[in-house]
């Protein structure tokens, strides 16, 4: 089956603090078609993002498909609060890159 990478389909893929204890991830699409394609592919789920980021499922504290903005959004509990000793990303804004290359199956023509 043909696939496309998530970065080829989405307009924005980002991560950012949601408060001091969590990092939230947004995948936003320009066109409804791409949004629905990714949403319906079920490639992104609580289980799959937990696997991609090597965290236990209970650390995925929100997973939302947000139709008004053509967006898929999930949130990961930080192990330690932002800026704690040993932490490497105070704003949480460089945690999204593992999402870029996720393969999304394309419907056959």
């Amino acid at each position, binding site marked *: 089956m043909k696939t496309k990478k998530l970065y080829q389909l989405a307009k924005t893929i980002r991560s950012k603090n949601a408060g*001091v*204890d969590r990092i939230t991830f947004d995948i*936003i699409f320009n066109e409804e078609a791409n949004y629905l394609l990714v949403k319906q592919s079920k490639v992104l789920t609580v289980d799959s993002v937990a696997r991609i980021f090597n965290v236990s499922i209970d650390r995925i504290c929100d997973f939302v498909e947000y139709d008004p*903005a053509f967006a898929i959004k999930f949130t990961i509990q930080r192990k330690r*609060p932002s*800026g704690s000793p040993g932490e490497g990303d105070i704003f949480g804004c460089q945690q999204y890159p593992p999402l870029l290359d996720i393969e999304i199956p394309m419907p056959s023509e």
Partner: protein
Amino acid sequence: MKKNKLRILCPNGHLGFAPTKEGSFKLGAETKPDYYCCDSGSDDIGPGPLGNDDCVSPRAWQKHDLELMLLASRKQNVPMIIGSSGDTGSNSRVDMYVEIIRELAQEHKLEPFKLVYFYSEVKKDYLREKLKNGITIEGLDGRKDLSPGELEATDNIVAVAGIHPFIKALELKADVIIGGRSSDAAIFAAPAVYNGFSESNSYYLGKVLECASFCAEPYGAKESVIGTITKDDVKVTAMHPEQYCTIASVAGHAMYERSNPFFEYFAGGKLDMTDCSYIQIDAKTTQITGAKFIPIEGNMKVKLEGAGKVGERYMGIVGVRDPYTIKNIDKVIDWAREQAEERLGKEGYQIFYHIYGKNAVMGEMEPVQDTKSHELGIVVEAISEDKDLAKEAAIIGSRQIFYARLPEVKGTAGTAAFLIDEVMPTSPAHRWTLNHTVEVDDPMELFTLIETEVTL
């Protein structure tokens, strides 16, 4: 006299953090908005500034941004409102902003005006008393409720104000309001509620305006936007000639920096955005309807932020280029840790290795296991309550990377490249100790309002 619409200009999502862009601000000011409002704080900046009680931004940048707003608002004789002064909204930062406003009034020989400011700091004694009386200080975002130990580990605490102190200040006919720590949206919602608009539209107005041009596209921060509220709707318009508030950018902003795009919590209730609808009404403007504010049942809860010092901190910077050493970097780090332990024991200090090129940015969440970099940059972070010990730990933790014993290494003159052959003192290490809420009987219980005239 009731207004049937109110227009609020927001120049910057975090005043002073990077200077406001003047072009779009001036375009916005020419349209004569009813209020100039801006948030100057964030918990994004980590626990250090609150713990240390200082700013992350240069005073000159903060003064620059305040000057733009003060001159525009005084020229028009409309109010200007600032929340979360000086990054943290602590009392010393409020005092600093009050001082800057006075300086600017002198420098520009402004006509006398009324300044109202408020403090948001919370004393540890207040919370000790609550804990002693068995009152729960509830943890947010998966945190445990506050324990006496965590409270004692805290240096500074601020309460996050809702609309209430701002409304009190508006009732006092303030021309300039300088706020302590505040909910960003409340800074904009307060004048709307004060002018009689519904809480639903007012809080949504605040929600959409608080990050200035982050609700517009294409991406470009620190540009002004104007929000307009009526009894029926909220509209938001980009002021930069090449930015647009589109359905996608505005709806997208609703989910920015929050776990859930449908709900936003404030002192006094929550905003439900589930049924929001968005209509593009002109190229630069999107209209939003359908937000619902749901007041809290029972006592109001106010969010608390607290930070505590962990220790003094030194850092060393070390580079590695040898491919064999890179491949065995974990063994090298183990060696350096062992050497530190041999010299300093196991207690009283911590060493963290941030290995750029391997997993310094993502740590345990990094899925790439096979390091492909041809060189690594290692930041050695050493922390101890004892400053000398922190320094020694940073030195030994860095220098022993140089002496790593790998059986087949070819380069026997040193396994590391030092950027500097010493370690650097940094700001002390802190951590967020409080992300909690406390119940209050009176919404003003944690905030102290001060009324003053600014005259030449």
